[in-house]
């Protein structure tokens, strides 16, 4: 009976919801094809089945490998944070440092953004706010040298977690991407296995360009997870569905504000439900 009711208009509506949430054309097509198959295979029998069906498909695309990092047995665990300009890297580091500190860990952060005006001061303020040490050099110095010192300090001070901030950089700028490799290499030379986590920060307001960001950054350094920031706005951040689908990079955290506690572990089902929230 329901079959007849799932007409083109309804599918057009769903397409509109997905595209308006920044899911993008290719992944939206995949999902709409899944629906057509679902209807044929009698998994979908009425319009009411559509949304739950889509939510499941979307969470499946997002599911693989999410979850918060387990710290290494042999400290320090090194976390490198990367991304394009202004997405929320430094703020996320403040929140993450606070999270690990609340968990009872000894945390150090490294100011390896030596380029942007007052980036070091910004991280220092966060360091004071959450009560963690900040390793820094002066503005304009070599970021890899900051990373090197930070790793030494983390070892000497027996820190459990070292989080390294990096300058925002557009993924198309080859020389800046090479610089990231170098930072990562320095950490690895001093601590085998480091960085244990490389988090790519993506802004939920970003559209299809986030796919390009994810591709370029993961071609440069091994991106182990995504942090999706600014979900407290009206943007849905649907492009991470495309990233999950096309690249299989898991989302680990979401940012929901500018405050120290505005960080949440990523929950795929909840995220998928929110894509349709106000429709």
């Amino acid at each position: 009976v329901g079959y007849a009711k799932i007409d083109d208009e309804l599918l057009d509506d769903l397409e509109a919801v997905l595209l308006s949430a920044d899911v993008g054309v290719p992944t939206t097509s995949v999902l709409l094809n899944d629906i057509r198959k679902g209807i044929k295979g009698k998994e979908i029998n009425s319009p009411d089945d559509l949304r739950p069906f889509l939510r499941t498909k979307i969470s499946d695309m997002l599911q693989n490998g999410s979850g918060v990092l387990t710290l290494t047995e042999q400290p320090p665990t090194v976390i490198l944070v990367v991304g394009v300009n202004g997405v929320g890297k430094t703020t996320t580091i403040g929140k993450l440092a606070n999270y690990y500190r609340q968990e009872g860990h000894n945390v150090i952060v490294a100011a390896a953004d030596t380029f942007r005006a007052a980036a070091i001061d910004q991280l220092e303020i966060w360091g004071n706010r959450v009560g963690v040490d900040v390793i820094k050099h002066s503005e304009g110095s070599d970021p890899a040298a900051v990373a090197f010192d930070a790793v030494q300090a983390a070892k000497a001070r027996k820190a459990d977690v070292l989080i390294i901030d990096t300058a925002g950089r557009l993924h198309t700028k080859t020389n800046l991407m090479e610089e990231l490799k170098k930072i990562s290499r320095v950490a690895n030379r001093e601590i085998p296995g480091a960085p244990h986590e490389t988090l790519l920060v993506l802004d939920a307001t970003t559209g299809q360009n986030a796919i390009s960001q994810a591709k370029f950054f993961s071609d440069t350094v091994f991106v182990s997870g995504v942090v999706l920031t600014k979900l407290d706005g009206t943007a849905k951040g649907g492009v991470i569905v495309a990233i999950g689908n096309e690249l299989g990079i898991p989302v680990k955290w979401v940012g929901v504000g500018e405050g120290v506690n505005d960080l949440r572990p990523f929950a795929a089902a909840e995220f998928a439900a929110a894509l349709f929230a106000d429709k």
Partner: protein
Amino acid sequence: MVFESLADKLQQTFKKLRGRGKLSEGDVADALKEVRLALLEADVNFKVVKDLIAKIKERAIGQEVLESLTPAQHVIKIVNEELANLMGGTQSRIVIASKPPTVVMLVGLQGAGKTTTAGKLANHLKRQGKRPLLVAGDIYRPAAIKQLQVLGEQLDIPVFTLGDKERPVDIAKKAVEQALSMARDIIIIDTAGRLHINEELMQELKSIKQTVRPHEILLVVDAMTGQDAVTVAEAFNNDLGIDGIILTKLDGDARGGAALSVKAVTGKPIKFAGMGEKLDALEPFHPDRMASRILGM
């Protein structure tokens, strides 16, 4: 890459069109489907795309086009024209007040590039012989004031601050009062990044507007913004009233459909484009170039 393949497809579609003598309505409809995909891939807003395609279709499926000697050329021309039209002409100017100081205020979402753009704009105006004063109106973001001070120092342009304990509206007011005694003819107010749905912070901007009556309120928009660009631009324009837009981070590979979307919903001109992190990386906005970029051509 998705983008490239779509652009290629579009080129092929246009080539196919060109290759034909006559076009049927179906040919045009097929071509417009490709255009629609290209626009969506470029992050042009879904609804804006819908309206735009309808408009193009209306013009393209008329007798005049289909029966012309070069119908394909005609269709391509219409697509480009409609895009460029929507994007507006070049208006990369700041309106200068007849009685100084001219007051410019930069607003926008978090991380869009306001503070950097404040520095770039001051630099741009200084090169035109103006004497700008930068005003540190962001009292919330950690080290926002310091960031502006560092930029001011690099540019040798003074920065007005009252620290982070005074209200932004008072900071703006005092800055205007002091500008003339400092022999400054343009003041550029940096404001904190905020969400358009944050009523308290939107009210703060309205108070500044009421108090200092800026000649230019410019919305700073990240070129990488997706579908949400229209919601944001509409909200800032409705709540506050904006005079123009500055698009940032166009130095990457973002196709920048947000440009078309914000222009379409606000009707306000895009005045400048940010092309990098350096303080000279501000350029006049070129609507025609942007149109080709959005189509990936």
